[in-house]
């Protein structure tokens, strides 16, 4: 489990809470180890139930065995407005296949028994509200989830989920974007735990050829406000992207490009996941 504190520090500033935690979280120890090794964290995103519900644990294992340092499990939502075509299509297919929040939780529990690396849930706010904010956080923690990523929840609207996540010992990741003002970056850094999700492009998710030149200055701005790891996502799809971010960011998230690869090989998606991730970053 992420942490084992019996004392509640809800209401304390996040920075203080982190300092007095009695045990390090899975995300903290992962980033600390990678930082010591001078390596980027590679976080692989998979939509729960894409391409089929029974394949998700297999794909998570394949990713973990092919260099993924953490897994982001997407609980599909009907209206993913921060997502491009790839994740939209994967979400629709997963929903058609019967994925619910309850099934995603069962899936996470099964996956947790098979892999040790950090697991995060990514979903939009409404499925969490419908399940119940506190109930969802407790259930996610019990299933072995380490953190949450909610793309339609800016820090300014997050007080309820922050409280519930904190009480359930879940990390809650916030975003910064190339368009973010410095005050918003500061607020995200103050509210976040686990890591800061740095959006690489002004746009929605989806594989892209080039990195935005504004990305490196954005990472530098974030560093001025936090010691949390900085992880870059949106558009990350090529080995050159990882090379360019080596020594600059602490990690990358690869999502649409991985799902695109899976879509190309419906017969053997697990091999495709292995092939894609090892191609993205050859094993040491």
């Amino acid at each position, binding site marked *: 489990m992420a942490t084992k504190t019996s004392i509640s520090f809800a209401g304390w500033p996040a920075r203080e809470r982190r300092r007095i935690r009695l045990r390090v979280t899975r995300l903290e120890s992962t980033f600390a180890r990678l930082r010591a090794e001078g390596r980027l964290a590679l976080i692989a995103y998979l939509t729960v139930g894409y391409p089929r519900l029974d394949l998700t644990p297999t794909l998570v294992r394949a990713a973990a065995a092919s260099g993924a340092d953490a897994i982001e499990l997407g609980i599909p939502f009907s209206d*993913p*407005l921060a997502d*491009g075509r790839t994740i939209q299509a994967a979400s629709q297919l997963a929903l058609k296949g019967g994925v619910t929040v309850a099934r995603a939780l069962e899936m996470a529990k099964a996956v947790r028994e098979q892999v040790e690396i950090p697991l995060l849930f990514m979903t939009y706010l*409404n499925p969490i509200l*419908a399940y119940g904010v506190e109930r969802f956080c407790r259930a996610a923690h019990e299933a072995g989830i380490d953190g949450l990523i909610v793309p339609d929840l800016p820090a*300014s609207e997050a007080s309820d989920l922050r409280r519930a996540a904190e009480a359930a010992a879940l990390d809650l990741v916030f975003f910064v974007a190339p368009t973010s003002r410095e005050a918003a970056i500061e607020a995200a850094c103050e509210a976040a735990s686990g890591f800061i999700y740095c959006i690489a492009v*002004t746009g929605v998710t989806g594989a892209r050829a080039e990195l935005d030149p504004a990305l490196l200055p954005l990472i530098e701005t974030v560093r001025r406000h936090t010691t949390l790891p900085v992880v870059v996502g949106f558009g990350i799809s090529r080995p050159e992207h990882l090379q360019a971010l080596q020594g600059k960011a602490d990690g990358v998230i690869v999502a649409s490009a991985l799902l695109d690869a899976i879509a190309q090989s419906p017969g053997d998606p697990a091999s495709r996941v292995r092939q894609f991730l090892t191609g993205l970053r050859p094993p040491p």
Partner: protein
Amino acid sequence: MSSAKLDRGPDGRGRYGRYGGQFIPETLMAAVEELTAAFEAAQHDEGFRREFEELSRSFSGRPTPVYRADRLSAKAGGARIWLKREDLCHTGAHKINNALGQVLLARRMGKQRIIAETGAGQHGVAVATVCAKFGLTCEVYMGVDDMARQAMNVYKMRLLGATVTPVETGSKTLKDATNEAIRDWVTNVRTTHYVIGSAVGPHPYPLMVREFQSVIGREARAQMLAQTGRLPTVVVACVGGGSNAIGIFAPFYDDPVRLIGVEAAGRGLNSGAHAASIVGGRPGVLHGSFSYLLQDEDGQVLATHSISAGLDYPGVGPEHAFLHEAHRAEYVSVTDEQALGAFHETCRLEGIIPALESSHAIAYAMPLAAELAADDTVLINLSGRGDKDLDIVRGLAGA
């Protein structure tokens, strides 16, 4: 009904009671902050107000009259029915009020590209119209199902120089057109203003739309006082996202006037094929705000149905959710069939072809008028004209 002063909101966080807010990707946060500041500055700028009022007069055709519908009143038996004639606005609906206001604001902000979503096409046509007038680039997102049932409005938008982009995802109607417009905005936010067409979306959109549409209620209130010597007993308006309703309701908040919003019950509330968010839904987050929403147990947004494309939307503006919870407005629903009946009655009895959206308000107001006294008055917001719906009505008549 209450005559106590309503705390109308929004508060500093864009909340109407517990509804509203800004549930959007971080990429858009700076843009909505910029928009909030620009809107506040414009509201206090005499020059902006004068330009909006002058163009509302000379371009949109304001003020629109209120009209005493004698034969509808006689048919209902009871209260006198009056219609606020937004159908007489340029482009045929109240949508031009908000399109004009927001495009003027976009010009102030130096945005050269305008995007919009549209359901029935009335908002899309209004935005394309104002963009043509000012020479701005305009792209309108529209579900392919709506493009099929509102083909004439698609043609009009293209005549006016707008690009109409078909949306093939999800329900292929207004909800998914809105998703696509938001994705475009996330990508092009630096150069582009997104003109949301209803009283929905993240703060400050519900506030802006209310303010630009409140001209309807301000005019109607003064006109009713001048022509009947008193305030109406009841004000009735249809509610999809709720822009025409919030526009006519807001100036009556502090008056002893009943406010009734009529949602689309489609094939019936128990059929599952409807679009009545407040009557048949529960609170949730869609398109940037917390409000009533048609959703399943798992928080997935449901497909909706209404004969009227403009009401075919699973959400509703957060201020309506607040008015409902504060018991300041009542929310009811009428079916496709009832709306269609009112459509035909209004054609034959008054010589007015109403939009199918507005026909929902008429359908509820008729039996309501029958229950009221002869010296009561029911004011209906006739939000648009029905020319755009003729293919649908003709198709049903032929079926």
